[in-house]
């Protein structure tokens, strides 16, 4: 394999700021978190997928995938990351290499593809993604990008994260590395303020950033750069002038946050927009850090006032549902940070979480779940669809919250299901988002369709009465 990628993977995994990694013996640390995959029993995205997810929300650039049709043709246009203006990120660009390219190398085609994009769409930058096959045949995308950038006088950013390098989470980190290497710090902002922050690990799915931004706006906090939701190339190139970095989505981009601190002295904090308490805590920690960095101290008081008003408003709206949802049992199947941040939100609405998956969670995530749920009992390390189906069809849960791929386990068991993964259609961030989540759960549970689909057909219901019904 390309020694540059190998070295980079080593570097990314030897992450001193990752507490998951710090807990391992020194010899293990460098191995990182590449759990070996089981052939024939694996599910999940590849490193290319992860890098693309991390960077695709940068809305004004062209994202060009160098590889065969599968990598982009089978995956483009499938996420609800929203943009307030530029739309070029929604285009699918690929060099779509053919058999001859495999034999002779795809570099020339890649170069021509970059030229065509610049001539036709003139974006502020082109991001070029490496894939397995082109990595294997030895196409040097970094050289092509360098050459194209010189030739066309425009940033052309190589993202060296071929699918077979590892899982999706590795790709998130390698995507962030591309920004650190080639984008961040290459431009200077026109002006700065003491209220400037940058976000990382926020993808603005279904516009969730816009559930949060009004809070920041009200406090005078300026998001100078978001990596990468509703992102713009020039903003990200200037993110090294932010006062504070707010890191969302747990450790997905911890390498970015930590290196921004090392290189530019920008402190970072880990926050979550999911759940009322988490939202408030994130705001508090953020403004404290801003004040430490020189923002006027009245920001603290203003923030507390805003939190009080917003929390009260959210509680008032959720209280309407608490009586309806109290005691309802939820099975939560999701990864990483979302598990604990959603658990606290559901508990706020009076529901009981009967199980939550911790497959992708770090030690810190698990500790938080233990604190919230009182013990290990409800943590599920890995659960097969058949086990989920059994849990649901035996009525050990009233509703399942998960990603799109497992939805049919619930639906085929005739149990309510709610999408909380990246393909969801509703925004669940901040105070607004929690009210929306609770409303959606109520909407799902109260739908008359459940009674209808569980009732047996008239010719199946004989004297044994409730034989079929649940």
């Amino acid at each position, binding site marked *: 394999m390309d020694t540059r990628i190998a070295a980079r993977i080593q570097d990314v995994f030897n992450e001193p700021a990752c507490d998951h990694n710090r807990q391992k013996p020194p010899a293990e640390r460098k191995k990182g978190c590449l759990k070996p995959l089981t052939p*024939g029993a694996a599910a999940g995205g590849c490193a290319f*997928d992860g890098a693309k997810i991390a960077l695709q929300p940068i809305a004004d650039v062209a994202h060009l995938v160098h590889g065969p049709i599968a990598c982009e043709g089978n995956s483009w246009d499938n996420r609800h990351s929203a943009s307030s203006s530029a739309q070029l990120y929604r285009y699918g660009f*690929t060099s779509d290499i053919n058999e001859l390219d495999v034999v002779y190398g795809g570099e020339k085609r890649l170069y021509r593809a970059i030229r065509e994009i610049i001539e036709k769409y003139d974006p502020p930058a082109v991001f070029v993604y490496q894939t*397995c096959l082109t990595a294997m045949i030895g196409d040097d995308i970094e050289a092509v990008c360098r050459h194209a950038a010189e030739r066309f006088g425009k940033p052309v950013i190589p993202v060296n994260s071929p*699918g*077979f390098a590892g899982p999706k989470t590795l790709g998130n980190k390698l995507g962030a590395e591309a920004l650190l290497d080639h984008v961040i710090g290459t431009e200077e902002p026109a002006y700065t303020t003491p209220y400037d922050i940058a976000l990382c690990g926020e993808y603005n799915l279904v516009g969730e950033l816009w559930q949060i931004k009004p809070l920041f706006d009200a406090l005078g906090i300026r998001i100078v750069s978001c990596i990468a939701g509703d992102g713009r190339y020039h903003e990200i190139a200037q993110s090294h002038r932010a006062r504070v970095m707010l890191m969302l989505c747990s450790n997905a981009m911890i390498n970015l946050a930590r290196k921004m601190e090392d290189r530019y002295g920008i402190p970072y904090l880990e926050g979550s927009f999911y759940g009322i308490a988490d939202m408030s805590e994130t705001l508090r920690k953020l403004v404290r850090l801003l004040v430490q960095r020189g923002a006027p101290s009245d920001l603290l008081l203003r923030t507390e006032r805003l939190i009080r008003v917003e929390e009260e408003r959210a509680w008032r709206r959720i209280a309407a549902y608490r009586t309806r949802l109290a005691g309802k049992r939820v099975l939560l199947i999701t990864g990483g940070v979302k598990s604990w941040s959603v658990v606290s939100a559901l508990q706020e609405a009076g529901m009981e979480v009967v199980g939550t998956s911790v497959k992708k969670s770090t030690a810190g995530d698990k500790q938080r779940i233990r604190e919230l749920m009182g013990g290990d009992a409800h943590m599920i390390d890995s659960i097969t669809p058949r086990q989920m189906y059994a849990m649901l069809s035996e009525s050990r849960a009233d509703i399942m919250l998960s990603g799109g791929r497992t939805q*049919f386990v619930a639906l085929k068991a005739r149990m309510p299901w709610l999408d909380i993964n990246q393909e969801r259609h509703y925004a669940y961030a901040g105070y607004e988002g929690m009210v929306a989540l609770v409303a959606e759960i109520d909407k799902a549970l109260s739908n008359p369709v459940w009674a209808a689909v569980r009732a047996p057909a008239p010719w199946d219901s004989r004297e044994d009465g409730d034989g079929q019904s649940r």
Partner: protein
Amino acid sequence: MANLVESRKACTVNPLRTSSPLGASYAFLGMDRCMPLMHGSQGCTSFGLVLLVRHFREAIPLQTTAMNEVTTILGGDDNLEQALLNIAKRAAPALIGVCSTGLTEAKGDDIDAVLKQVRQRHAELAGVELVHVSTPDYRGAFQDGFASAVTALVRALAVPAAIRDPARVNVLAGSHLTAADIDEVRDMIEAFGLVPVFLPDVSASLDGHMPDDWQATTLGGTRVDQVRSMGAACCTLALGEHMRAPAIELEMASGVPYELFDRLTGLAACDHFLQRLSQLSGRPVPARYRRQRSQLLDAMLDGHFFFGQKRMAIAAEPDLLWAIAMLMVEMGAELGACITTTRSVQLEQLPLETVLIGDLEDLELAAADCDLLLAPSHGRQAAQRLGKPLYRIGFPQFDRLGNAHRLSVGYAGTRALIFDIGNMLIDHLPHPGPDSWPLPEASRRAAAADCAA
């Protein structure tokens, strides 16, 4: 008539094409108790899975050999072997369909050899059929991969039979047919007293039904023993030009002759199909279809007002493009643009200058003077930018319900298609306003009061 031209662009923009291993996997999904397996890195399977799940809104069995850079370089034989064993243990399938990918093809993994060794080494796989299809991502499209998988199934399983049953027919159902289409064709064939075996049969596995229990493999479809006994049929009906190669393969393997039906959408195409069924069975066309034919005639008459001289921009895989485009022409519409994914000889018969093997950027550029776009859901961005309506056809349609149940074959399906598209055209009839017909300057001057007088 039409030139079939390949795009000269180096950069594909907004792909229409999806990959051949995905098409092959879809064919395997029409087999009973089957697990398709992509021999490649896990992303290949993950992307395909998401696309299939969103289109069908069903759980999709699909697995990966989870190749990484080390196993790629050293050879993926161990991964493939482990995957087969794991799948056999966890999912207990009757069939595992192994689809190669660009990565493992370019590396040169010899899958057939591995399958042979695995057979020798592992008695526990005795009850599991293993069928391999070569589908490098960098060659062909979804439809090609689908055809290759059907060919591979026939080659691996079909044998000559001692006795032919004059009532039995094989039906090779192309990738352009939905579950509802297959059900409709089955009804038509059975109405003549014939007994069809479909290969593959997504109407039993991906028709969106409520199973009694959770199962890790497909929940229905063509059984392995049904493919083995295809030699006992009197003939093979190949539906779609891309089913020609598998039909020839079947004829070579079992001696059963084939007949190709390039499409089952449109009046003449349906007439021809029913006429042949009547000849094969020696029975007259049932009253039900005579009635449906008459309904179709009425639908064509009612609909033609709205189709006449409308310009259609169509992007679809070759066989679907052929069926839809020809219906549009038969309804009086014009083909403004036809974009497709891969070569297919029949497309040269389409009445327009160029059929382009291209992408949705090509469609968008060509559709500027068209009235309606017909494309998969990915065409919505182009339609939005152009401010024109989009009628969704083909795969994927991730923003529509009921894709398995959309019927477009037979008299009934043709009628439904005419009504659906016709209604969309009615919705977009031009609305005249007070300024729609301004007089030219010369006319207005001529009518003005003569100031000089």
